[in-house]
C-alpha cells in the first residue's frame, strides 16, 4: 500500500485545441492592431488548453503526490520544517494587504507590522539595525558580505577580499563570498565539531574581510570557542558574519550580537515558520551591529513620529543598495511578523528549548538503537548528525538507501550527505512542533530499517517501494536532458 497518489499526466496531455476556461477571461476581446506587425507574435505559445475542472483536478492530484509538513514528519536537517501556522497565511492574505501596490502611498498598517518586525528581530539577535529586504537566506548572506566589503572599502581598507569559511559551512556561504567578488578560504573543524583555532589563526591576516559562521554549526553543535573566534577575527581586522539558518536553536538563549557577530542573516522561512512552498519563497532579513548600520540594504521602514516611511538611498547614501525590485518578500515578512506575535516573548524562547529537547531526545534514542552520532560527546543543538559509515561498511547500505526507505515508512528523509565532511550522514532536525510520539514512531522506523539492513539489505537498495515512482535515474536525467515538454510537431 502506498501513501501517495499514482501517476498524473502532464497538464499539456490533458489539453485539447480550443478548450478554454472562459470564466477566467476578461469580458472583452479587443484586437491588437496597435502593435506593429513586426513586433507581434505570430504563433500562440504552446500553453495548456484545459477546462477549469481539469486544472483544479490536475493540480489537486499533483499536490497529493508530495510529502509536506501538513501531512508528514519532515526532519530535514538545516531546513527547520516546523508547523506553519495557518493564521500566518490567512492574515497575510487579507484582501487589503494583497491589493497594496508597492509604489503606492506608504501603507501605515502594513508598515507598522514591518517596523515592529524589524524591532523584534533586532532584539532577538542583539543587533542594532535590521533590513527585511533580502529575499532568502542566500541573499541575506550576500547582503552581509557586501556590507562587510563596503565597510572595509569605506575605510579605504581595499585589500580585504578574503572570506573565511569553515569546511562544514552550507554551500551558500562560499558561493555568496564568490558572488561578492571575494575569495574563499576554507578552514577545518576539530574532532568535536568546533572550528580549528590553530587553522583559523593561520588563516587570518590583512586580506581577511571576515568569517562566515553558522552557530550552532551545520554539524549540529554549538561553537564552544565562539568568543575566541570572534577575538581572533576582530583582531585581524575582519568582521564576523552569522549564518542564521540555525537561529531556531538559540532563540532567546544567546544572541549573535552578544557573541560578537557584526552581521547576521535570518531565514525567516525557517525560524519564523513562513512557508517553504516547495522550494520558496523565503526571506533573509539581515541584522547588523553599529559598524555596519550605514550599509544596510534598502528600503527599510523608518518612523517619523507617528508616521512610518520607507528609508531609501536618500536616508542611507552608503547603503549597499537594492536587492529586489521593491521591498523584498513583503508577504513572507508579514507571515514572520504574525508568527512572532503569536508566540511572543515566552514562545520565542520555548522554540529553542523544545527544538533542543526534541533533538537531544531523538539523538539519544537513536544512539541507544545502535546508530552512531557524529558528535556523541556533544549536546545536540536543534539538530544532530547520524553517520552510517559502519552500516555502510557492514551491510553495504548507504545514507541514500535509508533515506528512501524512510519514505516507505511515512517519514520524509533527513538531509543526506550534508555537511559533506561527515561520511554517509543524516542530518536530523525534528523541530519543536513535533510530538514525542512522532519522534518515537520515527525511531521505531529507524530500528525496523536497521533490522532490514541486516536481513534484507536489497529491500533498502531498491527503496522506495510505495511512492508514485521507484528510485529515479538521476544520471539519465542529467545526461539525456528533458527539461521541457514540446508539442508534437
Amino acid at each position, binding site marked *: 500500500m502506498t501513501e*501517495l497518489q499514482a501517476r498524473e499526466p502532464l497538464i499539456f496531455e490533458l489539453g485539447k485545441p480550443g478548450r478554454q476556461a472562459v470564466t477566467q477571461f476578461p469580458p472583452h476581446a479587443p484586437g491588437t492592431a496597435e502593435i506593429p506587425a513586426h513586433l507581434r507574435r505570430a504563433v500562440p505559445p504552446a500553453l495548456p488548453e484545459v477546462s477549469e475542472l481539469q486544472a483544479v483536478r490536475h493540480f489537486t492530484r499533483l499536490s497529493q503526490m508530495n510529502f509536506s509538513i501538513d501531512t508528514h514528519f519532515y526532519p530535514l536537517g538545516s531546513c527547520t520544517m516546523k508547523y506553519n501556522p495557518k493564521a500566518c497565511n490567512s492574515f497575510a492574505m487579507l484582501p487589503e494587504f494583497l491589493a497594496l501596490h508597492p509604489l503606492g502611498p506608504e501603507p501605515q498598517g502594513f508598515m507598522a507590522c514591518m517596523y515592529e518586525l524589524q524591532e523584534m528581530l533586532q532584539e532577538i539577535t542583539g543587533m542594532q539595525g535590521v533590513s527585511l529586504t533580502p529575499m532568502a537566506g542566500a541573499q541575506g548572506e550576500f547582503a552581509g558580505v557586501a556590507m562587510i566589503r563596503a565597510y572595509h572599502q569605506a575605510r579605504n581598507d581595499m585589500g580585504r577580499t578574503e572570506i573565511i569559511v569553515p569546511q562544514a559551512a552550507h*554551500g551558500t556561504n562560499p558561493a555568496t563570498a564568490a558572488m561578492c567578488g571575494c575569495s574563499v578560504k576554507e578552514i577545518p573543524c576539530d574532532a568535536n565539531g568546533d572550528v580549528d583555532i590553530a587553522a583559523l589563526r593561520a588563516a587570518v591576516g590583512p586580506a581577511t574581510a571576515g568569517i562566515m559562521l553558522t552557530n550552532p554549526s551545520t554539524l549540529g553543535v*554549538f561553537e564552544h570557542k565562539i568568543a575566541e573566534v570572534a577575538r581572533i577575527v576582530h583582531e585581524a581586522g575582519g568582521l564576523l558574519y552569522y549564518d542564521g539558518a540555525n537561529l531556531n536553536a538559540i532563540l532567546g538563549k544567546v544572541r549573535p550580537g552578544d557573541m560578537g557577530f557584526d552581521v547576521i542573516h535570518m531565514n525567516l522561512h525557517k525560524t519564523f515558520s513562513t512557508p517553504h512552498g516547495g522550494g520558496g519563497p523565503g526571506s533573509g532579513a539581515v541584522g547588523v551591529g553599529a559598524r555596519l548600520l550605514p550599509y544596510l540594504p534598502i528600503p527599510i521602514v523608518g518612523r517619523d513620529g507617528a508616521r512610518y516611511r520607507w528609508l531609501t538611498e536618500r536616508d542611507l547614501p552608503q547603503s549597499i543598495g537594492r536587492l529586489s525590485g521593491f521591498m523584498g518578500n513583503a508577504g513572507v515578512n508579514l507571515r514572520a511578523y504574525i508568527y512572532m506575535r*503569536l508566540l511572543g516573548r515566552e514562545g520565542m524562547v520555548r522554540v529553542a528549548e523544545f527544538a533542543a*529537547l526534541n533533538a537531544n531526545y531523538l539523538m539519544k534514542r537513536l544512539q541507544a538503537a545502535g546508530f552512531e552520532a557524529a558528535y556523541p560527546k556533544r549536546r545536540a543543538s536543534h539538530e544532530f548528525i547520524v553517520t552510517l559509515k559502519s552500516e555502510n561498511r557492514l551491510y553495504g547500505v548507504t545514507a541514500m538507501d535509508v533515506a528512501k526507505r524512510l519514505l516507505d515508512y511515512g517519514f520524509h528523509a533527513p538531509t543526506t550527505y550534508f555537511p559533506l565532511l561527515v561520511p554517509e550522514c543524516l542530518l536530523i532536525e525534528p523541530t519543536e512542533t513535533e510530538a514525542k510520539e512522532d519522534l518515537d514512531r520515527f525511531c521505531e522506523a529507524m530500528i525496523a530499517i536497521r533490522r532490514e539492513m541486516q536481513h534484507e539489505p536489497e529491500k533498502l537498495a531498491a527503496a522506495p517501494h510505495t511512492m508514485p515512482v521507484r528510485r529515479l*535515474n538521476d544520471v539519465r536525467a542529467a545526461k539525456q536532458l528533458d527539461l521541457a515538454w514540446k508539442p508534437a510537431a
Partner: protein
Amino acid sequence: MAFIPHTADDIDRMLERIGAQSIDDLFDEIPAALRAGALKLPPAMGEMELGRLLTERAQGDGRPVNFIGAGAYEHHIPAPVWAITTRGEFYSAYTPYQAEASQGTLQLIYEYQSMMCALTGMEVSNASLYDGASALAEACLMAVRANRGSNSRRILLPRSLNPTYRQVAHAIAGNQGLVFESVDFDRAAGRTALQALLPYSGQDVTALVIQQPNFFGCLEEVDELTDWAHQNKILVIAVVNPISLAVLKAPGQWGARTEAGHGADIVCGEGQPLGVPLASGGPYFGFMTTRMQYVRQMPGRIVGRTVDTEGRPGFSLTLQAREQHIRRSKATSNICTNQGLLVTAATIYMSLLGAAGLQRVAAASLQRTADLVARLSAVAGVKAAFTAARFHEAVLLLDRPVPPVLNALAQRGILGGLDLTDRYPELGHALLVCATETKLDVDIDSYAAALADVMQVARAAA
C-alpha cells in the same frame, strides 16, 4: 504553549532519557557569559486578537483604485489559483530533494519550465529566481560566463529599462566587476535609439539588455537591436513581461535568423503578472530561460524528466552540479531557496488562461491603457509623452508638478500612477500610468473626472 505539543509528562520522560535535569541543561555548552537575558518582546497574542489587529491595520490601508504598474501589475487572479497553491502539500513542502516523495512539486515545475519556454520561445527554463530585478542581475552574471568571446564584463543597459532593475544589477553584480553602461532613448519615440548603440559597434561588450515593453510601456525595436548585438558578438538579454508575450513576438524570435539560431540569448523578467497578487511588492518570482547551449551557465534549480528503476517516467532536480550545495564557491549562483510557491500559482494561472486567455488579458490591458491615455490626455494640461507603440503603460506629461496631483487623487481613492520626476528629471513633470483588464469603464471615467478636477483646482490655485 503555542505550537509546542509537549506535556509535562513528555518533558520529564524525555529529559530522563537524555539524562538532563532540565531543559536549560541542554544549553550548557553555551558559555554562561553569553547567555541572553529576558527578551524585550511583546507577550504572546492569541489568534483572535491578532486577527483583529491585522484586520484593522489592513482595512486602514484601504483599497484604492490602482493605476500604478511600473513592474508590478494588477491582474485578475482566478479563484482556483490560490485555493490550490495554499494547499498544505504545496505550501508546507520544501525543495524536492527527495524526488520520489515530491513528484507533485517536481512535475509542476517541469510543467512550469515548459510553459516559460513556450512563452519566451526558448529551450530551457529554470525553476525560478527571486524576482524580476534580481533575475536580470543573475542574467548579467550568466552572460559573462556564457559569452566566452568577451572579456570586458561590460553590459549595456538602456535608460528605458526599469531604473530599479539597473540599481539591483549594480548592487548584485557590481561586486564581481561588471560594468554597466547606459544607452539613451529617443525622446520623441520613448524607445532605445539604434544610434545610441552605434558607438559600441566593434567593441568588446558582453551583453545588451533589452526590455520589452520598456519601462515607459513603449515597444522597443527588438529585431534591430538584437541584430546589431549579434553582429557585434554581444549577447542579448531580454527582460520581458510574461503577459505581453501572448501578443508580442517571443524573444526567441527576435532579430534575423542566423546560423547560430536567432533571438535573445537569455530571457528573464518578473513573473508576478502571472497570478501573483501585488501584496506590497512580494513575494513575486523571477523567471529565466535560455538556449540549451547555455544551460550549464544558468543559475537556479532545474527539473528534468527521467525514469525510475522500472522505466516509469518521473521527475527530479537535475544539473545540480551548477549549484551552490555541490559546486560551492564555483557555483553559477548562490541561490538556494527560490520562489517555488509563486511558481505554483503561476503554473495554475497559465493553465487556466492558456494562450487564448493570456492573449485576451494582454489585449484587454492594451486597450484599457489606450482608453486611459485617450481620456487623460484630453484633460487640459495633460499630454502623452511618447509616440512609440505601447503595451499597457504610458508616460503622461503634466503642465505642473506631479506629486501634489497624485496626493489629491489619492484623497479620492485613486492611485494615479508613478511620479517619474526623480527618475527621469529630463522629462519634466512625467507620470507613468497603467491600466490592465481589471479596470472597468467606470474606473477610467472616475480617474479622468478626478484628474480634470484636480488639475483645474491646481490651476486655479496657482
